[in-house]
């Protein structure tokens, strides 16, 4: 009997193994065409001067030296870092809190979940315009407006993005919280653990995988933030600081975009910025994954 089934497995598996490359091929080809090739070409172009990708001429590292002497880029870098820190903490803390509250047995928890999730369904550009109207409407009462200074724009963006993403992260946390084994909670209860002890010693270690996922998503979302930034303030106010132009509320992605649009001399520089941007996000994401993974517990 055992022999027979082993033979059957072999009979099925051998052809699959043999033909595996063929089945992988379409996806692999799509991956190469859609990702690998453009990515490599992008790296090549970051060392070139070009108007369209076809007429690229090799320039060496000139584009990269230009990037680091660009006050606008350094400002955008600082903004993005500050924005990432604030929004990661805010979104995850609030999303976890709401998820925690909604996994207690509250009446209408499902309705609340739906409502909290809904902002995530609205596109970034629409959100940006709507919130700019809301903020301007409020600030008008105080005789000022959203793009009057960088502070309003920054916190405006934080509020917008928090509002949009908390619902999404909440869903992930709810799934994590529901997976915490009932017997562990019961054991904690019988051992006389307080509510906060249960939360910090039992629940949070058990939802670490969700925390890893959510911090990863919020981190990369903050760094890649583009449409909300464009629609809310468009980088404004635009001021002259120490003899250079700076768009005060501009984040990295928007800065890359506006650099590309200066003229053809800047296409390569924008591409170099994009490569630096990629490296940055990749390194941060890997570091963050390593850090939070190590805290995950086996159930």
């Amino acid at each position, binding site marked *: 009997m055992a022999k027979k089934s082993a033979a059957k497995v072999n009979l099925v598996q051998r052809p699959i193994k043999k033909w595996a490359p063929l*089945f992988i091929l*379409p996806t692999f080809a799509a991956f190469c065409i859609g990702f690998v090739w453009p990515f490599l070409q992008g790296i090549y172009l970051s060392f070139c001067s070009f*108007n*369209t990708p*076809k007429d690229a001429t090799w320039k060496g590292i000139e584009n990269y030296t230009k990037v680091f002497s660009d006050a606008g880029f350094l400002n955008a870098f600082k903004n993005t870092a500050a924005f990432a820190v604030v929004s990661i903490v805010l979104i995850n803390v609030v999303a976890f809190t709401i998820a925690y509250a909604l996994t207690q047995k509250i009446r209408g928890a499902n309705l609340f979940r739906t409502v909290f999730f809904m902002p995530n369904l609205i596109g970034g550009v629409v959100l940006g315009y709507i919130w700019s109207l809301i903020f301007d409407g409020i600030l008008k009462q105080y005789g000022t407006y959203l793009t009057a200074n960088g502070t309003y724009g920054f916190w405006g963006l934080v509020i917008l993005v928090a509002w949009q993403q908390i619902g999404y992260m909440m869903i992930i946390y709810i799934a994590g919280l529901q997976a915490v084994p009932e017997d562990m909670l019961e054991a904690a209860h019988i051992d006389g653990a307080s509510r906060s002890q249960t939360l910090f010693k039992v629940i949070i270690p058990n939802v670490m995988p969700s925390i890893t996922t959510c911090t990863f998503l919020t981190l990369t979302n903050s760094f890649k933030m583009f449409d909300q930034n464009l629609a809310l303030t468009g980088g*404004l106010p635009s001021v*002259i600081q120490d003899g250079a132009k700076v*768009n005060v509320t501009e984040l990295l992605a928007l800065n890359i975009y506006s650099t590309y649009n200066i003229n053809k001399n800047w296409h390569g520089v924008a591409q170099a910025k994009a490569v630096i941007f990629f490296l940055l996000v990749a390194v941060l994401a890997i570091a963050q994954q390593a850090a939070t993974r190590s805290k995950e517990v086996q159930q």
Partner: protein
Amino acid sequence: MKKYLALILALVMSLSLVACGGGEDAADDGAGDAATETGRVYYLNFKPEFDAALQQLAADYTAETGVEVKVVTAASGTYSDTLTAEMAKDEAPTIYNIGNMSGLKDWDEYAIDLKDTALAGELNTDAFNLYNDAGELKAMGHCFESFGIIVNVDLLKEAGYELSDITNFETLKACADDIHARAGELGFDAFTAAGLDGSSSWRFSGHLVNLPLFYEFRDDGVTEQPATVTGAYLDNFRNIWDLYITDTSADAKTLSTSTGDESKAMLTEKKAVFYQNGSWEYASLAEAGLNVAMIPIYCGVEGEEKAGLCSGTENCWAVNSKVSEADQKASLDFLYWLVTDAEAAQVVVDNLGAIPFKSAPASSNAFLANGNDLAAAGNYTLTWAFNHTPNVDSFRATLVTALTAYSADPTDANWDAVVSAYVDGWAIEYATVNG
């Protein structure tokens, strides 16, 4: 079950790839054959409002000559992105738009010299053409537009004034101040909102700024993009801006979110007499049943009684130098047909306003007629000096930031920021673009 699902997915994927490949091949073959015989025309259109008419013209031309004409229109505000993307393709545009001198610097290598073409022979003025450093005609201005202050003539009369009463800044201000003071009793105010939202701010950061730029370039004999500007006429700019934000029902503190539609609505709903904008607005205003005319923008410059409208263009045809000669010829033939064929030229004129070609019919646009009357009376035309602006979007953004802050709190200190955005901003952008 799972096995079948996986199989179906793999099938769908490979089929979709095959389908994509197959589709492209077929398209290539068709275009390839046509190109060897007659050349192809691919017109990348800059003006969204011209799209429908141009598509129809293209179809007519194909029916008449058998030459395929493809027209693609870039969405408003995305022309340069679309152009860059399209130019990288094998089937690149053969006719495209170059807006100004900095656009020409980017696309010089991609444009043929149009000087000795039959099309150039049809031009009745050289004023709107763009030449590169070597003196080659690379982009041909094919329509021109004017901007100034649009006046609701009926409302002006109701307030007790005639168009002829306004001849310079003093008379404009006196009239506007008076209307503003009596706004409650008249039921309308002088100016529409000077909105600084992105949909409206270009009227000021782009167009109104043309006045100080034009006058200082005239004084200094500037004909090419200068590395620096002096701001000699910024006090005049302040005169007219103060008038815009004072003699209006709009709150100067909320201009940052005031849109172009809001401003236009104030005119069409007869809530205001004056509205700064251009000849492209004529058709929709006439349709709204308004009796409108356009007068020059006055700002208190010596001798401005003889000023005309600000006229120029950002619409210049360029023919791609990197496509085959057959394609270039087909494209030139199509353009020639557009401006010489009686019916086609009429459609072009109806959509683009006045076009500078010998056999083209006259435009019915009253604003352009106002401009022609002024010019015929010996007034000087203000050319579009702002076409020299380096890194134009960034220059304007800084100016808008400063203007918004000044409007909310019109102090001298805040005006200094406007001056800095203009003078220092220009120098910085010039260095950026040429650095």
